């Protein structure tokens, strides 16, 4: 199977989307953030100049314009660049896009994709390191996809583009350099189906986006300590594959949620609460949550590392949930 970089997969899925449907237009220019990869999108833009729109720095206006364009019949993929800038567009994303289908009693659909790059990326400090997906989750009406590898990315975004709903496509700049196998004729991946990138029996780790990579890394190390970890990657937060999580917890009896949102009311809270409610009898130990600490993300490198869920923290948390002493 051919391998490709996650960043290449981003370009690939944009290309396939544009090629596959005349109605797909791209709005924005930071799909690959400010990383060196971003020149790769440039080729695509040059190839399809009529299908690309470079908006001014006006997130409220241009995200809203994407919504309107979707209502009128386009299927725009709108890029908000850094997740933090979605706050400027909240009024349009969360008060318009999320509500329109419902408010109109199903008369009107908003077939669009909204892309952003989330998370701690190194030196982004408080205003460029957000993971707002938990807030989006708290607002019904948006589908949320959180790919963690090139193949899933392509399959999920193909589904998102074909979906008649507003879909939030969450990327992480640290994923761009990940390499992975991508089948030649990759098919759209249906929403609401988690993947289990690693099977295990002692502990379930729930993780999405970049945290899947870190959890897999930690699981590898834990295996050598005799702890068998199962990693559940939901792939889409909305809709959520609750059954896959509950099934895994039923098997392992222990849950660690690793997530890059802030802790309070983050993605981890919802997962923990769901499992606490529905798999209470299966639990052998308290659920642990690992998330970005509840402070604004600090700038200084050692401080930044201290707030984000690192592999070392995953190891420590996994040992504590499974009752294995650290340093074992």
């Amino acid at each position, binding site marked *: 199977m051919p391998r490709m970089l996650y960043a290449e997969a981003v370009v690939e899925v944009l290309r396939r989307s544009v090629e596959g449907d005349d109605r797909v237009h791209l709005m924005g*220019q930071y799909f690959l953030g*400010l990383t*060196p990869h*971003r*020149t790769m999108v440039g080729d695509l833009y040059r190839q399809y100049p009529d299908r690309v729109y*470079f908006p*001014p*720095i*006006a997130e*409220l*206006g241009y995200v809203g314009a994407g919504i309107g364009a979707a209502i009128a019949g386009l299927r725009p993929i709108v890029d908000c660049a850094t997740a*933090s*800038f979605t706050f*400027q567009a909240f009024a349009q994303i969360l008060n318009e896009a999320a509500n329109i289908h419902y408010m109109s009693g199903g008369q009107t659909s908003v077939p669009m994709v909204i892309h952003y790059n989330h998370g701690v990326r*190194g*030196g*982004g*400090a*408080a*205003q*460029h390191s957000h993971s707002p997906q938990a807030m989006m989750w708290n607002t019904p009406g948006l589908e949320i996809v959180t790919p963690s590898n090139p193949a899933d990315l392509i399959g999920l975004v193909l589904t998102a583009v074909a979906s008649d709903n507003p879909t939030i496509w969450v990327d992480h700049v640290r994923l761009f350099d990940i390499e992975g196998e991508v089948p030649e004729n990759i098919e759209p991946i249906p929403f609401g189906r988690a993947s289990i990138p690693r099977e295990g029996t002692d502990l379930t780790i729930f993780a999405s986006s970049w945290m899947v990579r870190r959890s897999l890394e930690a699981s590898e190390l834990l295996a050598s300590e005799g702890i068998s970890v199962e990693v559940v990657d939901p792939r889409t937060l909305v809709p959520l594959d609750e059954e896959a999580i509950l099934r895994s917890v039923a098997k392992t009896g222990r849950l660690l949620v690793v997530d890059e949102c802030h802790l309070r009311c983050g993605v981890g809270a919802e997962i923990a609460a769901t499992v606490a409610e529905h798999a209470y009898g299966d639990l052998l130990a308290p659920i642990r949550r690992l998330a970005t*600490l*509840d*402070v*604004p993300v*600090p*700038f*200084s*490198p*050692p*401080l930044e590392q*201290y*707030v984000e869920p690192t592999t070392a923290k995953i190891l420590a948390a996994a040992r504590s949930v499974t009752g294995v002493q650290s340093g074992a």
Partner: protein
Amino acid sequence: MVVTAPAQSGPEDLEMMWRIRAFEEKASELFARGKISGLLHLAIGQEATAVGVCGALQPTDRVFSGHRPHGHAIAKGAETGRLFAELAGRRTGYCGGKGGSMHLAAPEVGFVTATGIVAGNLPLALGAALSSKCRGESDVAVAFFGDGAAQTGLFHECLNLASLWQLPVVLVCENNGFAEFSPLSAHTVVERLADHADTYGIPTETIDGNDLTVVRPAAAAAIDRARNGGGPSFLECLTHRLRGHYEGDPTLKRGAAARDEAKDPIQRFTRFLHDAARSAELEGIEVRVRAEVEQAAEEALAAPWPERDDLLTNVVAQP
């Protein structure tokens, strides 16, 4: 008491411009060496607006800047050592390493804060101005922003509010012709950004922002107007950024032509002072300032990292 802003500029301003230039060039070098992380936006080539405006302000006047803030902070009186320490994430930085380049703050010298959000500082400056006005104080607030900010909704909301309430604020648009990576023409059909302010009845001036001898008197007039109850002003400074949007920008195409000396505010002001027969006063400025900046950088890099306990402090007021 009404203070009148100095409308003239002299060698001390050249020194300040060199300080900013030396600071940013050093920052660029440290970034390339991996001593500074994160996003670093430089304003090399725009020193005349920072020095022209801040040099006409009083210490208690309040400045609010954006993601390209170093020059404004230095011109307002911030220490280069503590700024370097902040850029390098050290405990001795102004913000103890929690802010970094885009979130510099040195309120003790009236550089209240910077923000990484385009146009995010405009309402903050208006709030400071509202505060002065309602309290009957004479402090003026200044917001520095780029041409990209003029396309944001906040810009429009703030022009309306500043005019409606006749706030003592000077809105300084550093129009360097580029919003992030794109030329202004890709962002708006409006050629003269000050036209927006005209619409709201705000006095405007569009000037050569690379000529300190033009910026200073224009700034002084605007600041005096604000201080004397004349309300807001909009100063559009046409300037030229000699670097890419940020350090490490892979699309940087602004090479030799952009380095045109004719546009360099430092060269221009140097020539002006020479022409004014003040050459003698200029000697050694650059060397002295570069050495001072070098020393400041060295000390900053030798400073300790923050402690882990620092992480959780100052999220909210300490009990």
